[in-house]
């Protein structure tokens, strides 16, 4: 048996919680230059714990960039696709950093800390690239800092997340709406508490001082144990986000892919005024995209993985960007890019799975949506089409 991936041997970073993961017996892998826990007891169990009760993730590898000053809003507006001016202080927004061809430099969560102060949470592998890009494009009075070392970031996700967290805080969590945040104490640990996540479940992302990261992890694990809370690694983080069809940078997104191709047109607010990439995106919108991100479900046995080519009657159509066995649905699921004319629901294609062509059909995304989201988002998903 030999794994088909190789690990690099360069020096890797560790989060302040690394010793905790080791003590818990986590299997450690390299991810984006970090040594991170990929699983503790098993990806499937951890995945199902998040769907059924709650899971705690150390995602401190994520980068944080702060932009402040009188010109901060204008800079954010110019470099991103979404309309940052619509955010009030204490709101969070999913956004994209675009290049001048409309390609995606990174996808991120932006927090409006104050009127003229923003925190961007970005992908670990892109942190330095993003910070440099923003600094290179800064005009006027804006202070830009990579503040990644100032935060431990824990994600507490799952239907029981609010109950777990409420036991340790005076914050009124029932009043904290999705895509909003608040500052408060979790027991003795001061946190930015954000009602956001990357799993498709209700949940929170907690930013705290790195010195108190271990304390926060331990107190949450202790108070949440009887509600089924368990530590969850990056393995289940990936399967959870894939079921919910959240894109992952380096897979569904890169600098040559535009939001229109990646099912992220809803993020792009053409009406907000000029921004980098606006013209090429308007042109692409007029001409129509050549390829589209679609959901794929193999009909024949086999699990599609990132990079596997997609065919239709012998013609190459594109490639798979992510694929796994869905622990919730217990069947293989995947996402990938195919040429637009073939991006039709139920269209039967072929995926080459290690030398073998496996029939697959284009399936609606997301593969999984939690029940409360299904009713609440019905109107919005209609509009997104």
């Amino acid at each position, binding site marked *: *048996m030999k794994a088909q991936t190789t690990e690099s041997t360069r020096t890797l970073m560790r989060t302040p919680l690394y010793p905790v993961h080791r003590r818990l017996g986590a299997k450690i892998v390299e991810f984006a230059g970090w*040594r991170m826990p990929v699983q503790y007891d098993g*990806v499937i169990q951890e995945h199902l714990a998040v769907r059924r009760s709650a899971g705690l993730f150390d995602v401190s590898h994520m980068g944080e960039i702060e932009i402040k000053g009188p010109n901060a809003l204008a800079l954010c507006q110019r470099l991103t696709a979404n309309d940052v001016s619509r955010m009030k202080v204490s709101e969070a927004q999913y956004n994209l950093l675009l290049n001048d061809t409309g390609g995606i430099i990174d996808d991120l969560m932006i927090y409006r800390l104050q009127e003229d102060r923003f925190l961007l949470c970005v992908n670990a592998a892109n942190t330095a690239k993003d910070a440099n890009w923003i600094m290179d494009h800064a005009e006027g009075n804006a202070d830009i800092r990579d503040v990644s070392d100032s935060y431990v970031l824990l994600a507490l996700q799952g239907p029981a997340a609010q109950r777990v967290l409420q036991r340790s805080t005076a914050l009124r969590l029932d009043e904290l709406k999705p895509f909003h945040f608040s500052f408060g104490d979790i027991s003795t640990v001061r946190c930015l508490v954000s009602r956001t996540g990357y799993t498709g479940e209700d949940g929170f992302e907690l930013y705290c001082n790195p010195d108190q990261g271990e304390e926060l992890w331990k107190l949450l694990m202790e108070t949440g144990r009887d509600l089924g809370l368990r530590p969850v690694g990056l393995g289940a983080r990936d399967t959870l986000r894939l079921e919910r069809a959240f894109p992952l940078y380096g897979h569904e997104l890169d600098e040559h892919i535009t939001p229109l191709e990646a099912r992220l047109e809803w993020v792009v607010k053409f009406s907000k005024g000029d921004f980098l990439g606006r013209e090429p995106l308007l042109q692409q919108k007029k001409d129509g995209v050549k390829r589209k991100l679609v959901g794929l479900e193999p009909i024949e046995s*086999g699990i599609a993985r990132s990079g596997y080519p997609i065919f239709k009657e012998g013609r190459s159509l594109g490639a798979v960007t992510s694929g796994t066995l869905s622990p919730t649905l217990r069947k293989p699921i995947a996402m990938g890019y195919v040429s637009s004319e073939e991006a039709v629901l139920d269209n039967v294609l072929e995926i080459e799975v*290690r030398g073998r062509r496996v029939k697959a059909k284009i399936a609606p995304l997301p593969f999984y949506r939690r029940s409360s989201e299904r009713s609440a988002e019905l109107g919005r998903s209609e509009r997104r089409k």
Partner: protein
Amino acid sequence: MNFPDNLKYSKEHEWVMMVEDAVALIGITEFAQSELGDVVYVELPEVGEKITKDDPFGSVESVKAVSDLFAPVSGTVIEVNDSLPDSPELVNEDSYGDGWMIKVQMSDKEELKDLLTPDEYAEYVERQQEEDDEEDEKDGE
């Protein structure tokens, strides 16, 4: 970690059990399944196919990744474990028993000499784990 005495082992973490003269049962070791995590799919050759020592004869997939299976011996596949398509988790639950993969009529019994004894394999695994730990010590400091 368990290394049954009646088995021979390959450095690619397969085990071989001689069930009759020149007939070998093949699977992956407990160490291999624990490194993989939850096994969700196993791809095996068909009965009658020939396999060649050190060449891939199938693959095993966890939720996260695919790994090739390398033949520890050469020969003809005379039986495959029909339970694995529907119950790939048997590889995790009972890697040396119900999680077996193929039965092979060996073409060259001499190849058994190239395989590791339980003690040798245990030492091999230990060394690999030590290397992991050493890497752990040196990085990030």
